[in-house]
């Protein structure tokens, strides 16, 4: 197999677009949340300013090697997730580095960042960070379970592990989307989706009012800025997977932006309506409501 060098600049372009879109989207979703609470909320460019400021801080201290690597792992988790999945269906420029069987790799990358973060935050030695990680990992596992089941169900349904082929199978009309051909799997996955977006009711891990802000307690300056960048990439990358698997993918950037926004809005919508769960409550919720749906979807397929 020959490697197509032209893919590298194109992938970087994808990354650039997604980072900017992610920053704006995050702020927009926060603004929507604020509007529901009758506030104006942060300015739409606030995340950029925060990032510049964090890079601009003059001092930063370290707690060891893993402390450095935590944010790096996290960022590479987000970037990897994005780059190994075709962003725009049918476009040579933006199909990135996708290949047959990339679905498994994507699943792996979803978890990769969290694990790296766990190691890094663990080295910071702060008890709040350790508690945050314990909570984060257990909730994450519970939330990934229905998603994983749904992915298997979809893979069985289309008899392939390639995201591109799954998208291809959904072309030709809205009724071909997995949403309509396999509603059980999509429901299970969308319930799991709530758990990984760090919005209420499942944001106990990162909520500032709980054990202060969880894993990143000790992170500051450029470390934090790296993680902020990841906060822009990761949700979008994750939503791209959902979009490709369940909602027919996107043919151009306009559809892409629109679909990603709508899927993100789903978590924001649930977030402003429901109060926060404790960790054991949310795990129970996932196991009771989402996992059986996922199992059922596999059985039905």
């Amino acid at each position: 197999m020959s490697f197509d060098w032209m893919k590298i600049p194109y992938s970087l372009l994808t990354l650039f677009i997604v980072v900017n879109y992610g920053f704006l989207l995050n702020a927009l979703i926060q603004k929507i949340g604020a509007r529901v609470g009758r506030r104006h909320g942060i300015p739409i460019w606030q995340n950029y300013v925060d990032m510049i400021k964090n890079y601009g801080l003059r001092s930063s201290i370290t707690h060891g090697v893993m402390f450095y690597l935590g944010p790096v792992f996290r960022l590479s988790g987000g970037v990897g997730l994005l780059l190994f999945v075709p962003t725009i269906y049918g476009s040579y420029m933006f199909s990135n580095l996708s290949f047959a069987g990339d679905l498994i790799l994507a699943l792996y990358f979803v978890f990769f960042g969290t694990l790296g973060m766990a190691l890094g935050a663990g080295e910071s030695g702060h008890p709040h960070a350790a508690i945050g990680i314990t909570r984060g990992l257990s909730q994450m596992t519970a939330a990934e379970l229905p998603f994983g089941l749904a992915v298997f169900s979809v893979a069985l349904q289309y008899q392939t592990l390639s995201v591109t082929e799954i998208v291809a199978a959904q072309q030709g009309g809205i009724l071909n989307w997995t949403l309509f051909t396999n509603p059980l799997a999509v429901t299970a996955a969308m319930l799991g989706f709530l758990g990984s977006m760090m919005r209420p009711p499942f944001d106990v891990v990162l909520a500032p009012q709980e054990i202060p802000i969880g894993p990143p307690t000790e992170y500051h300056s450029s470390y934090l800025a790296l993680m902020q960048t990841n906060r822009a990439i990761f949700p979008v990358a994750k939503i791209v997977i959902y979009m490709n698997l369940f909602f027919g993918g996107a043919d151009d950037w306009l559809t892409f932006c629109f679909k990603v926004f709508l899927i993100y809005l789903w978590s924001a919508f649930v977030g402003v309506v429901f109060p926060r769960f404790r960790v054991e409550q949310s795990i129970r919720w996932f196991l009771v409501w989402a996992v059986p749906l996922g199992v059922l979807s596999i059985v039905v397929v």
Partner: protein
Amino acid sequence: MAMKPELMKRMVKGPDGLEFEVEPLRDYYCEAPPTVMPAAYIKIVEDLFNWARAESIWILGFGTGCGAIEMRPLMTPRFDAYRYGVQWRPTPRQANLFIISGYLSTKTLKRAIRAYEQMQNPKYVIGLGSCTINGGMYWDSYNTIKRLDDYLPVDLYIAGCMPRPEALLSGFMDLKKLIRAGKGEGANKYVENFDWYKANQKRVIHDWDMPDYNW
């Protein structure tokens, strides 16, 4: 100087039977003194950073006196400080602005110093209420400090007892002007006059049981 027993130098027996000496203040903390952090070399970069610092003020959520109650309304729809780029952070590592919201008892002062020193340069301090300026109505109390400026480098005072949230908002606006003009150098001032600040702090804190600078 009374020291807590767990901070004393002592012999400890490890799980493998080896005995070794532990001196908590030496072994567990970094002893290096803080240094002056120069601004970015190129002026336009520093200006950009200063602008970003002014537009993204992260407050440490730490309330000391009665004035703390005035910070909470700022998060509500009525005042909504978020639209000015002011946000609250729960940990000193990520915060830039420390609002001393009222009187500081000497006990709290110790915590305030620890929190302040853990913040990253550049950092700013706002003294809220007359208690931080001259002791306010606690001027003759045996247990509170009178002038905050003797212990931490204050960038801005907001006078009143207690100041309204509007006063805080306008204080933020003034702080932004200071930062943008490059005058928010409290952290470096603290380092330059480190001995003076430490002497003042140690004069009122009698049970000093922490390293000189809490990294």
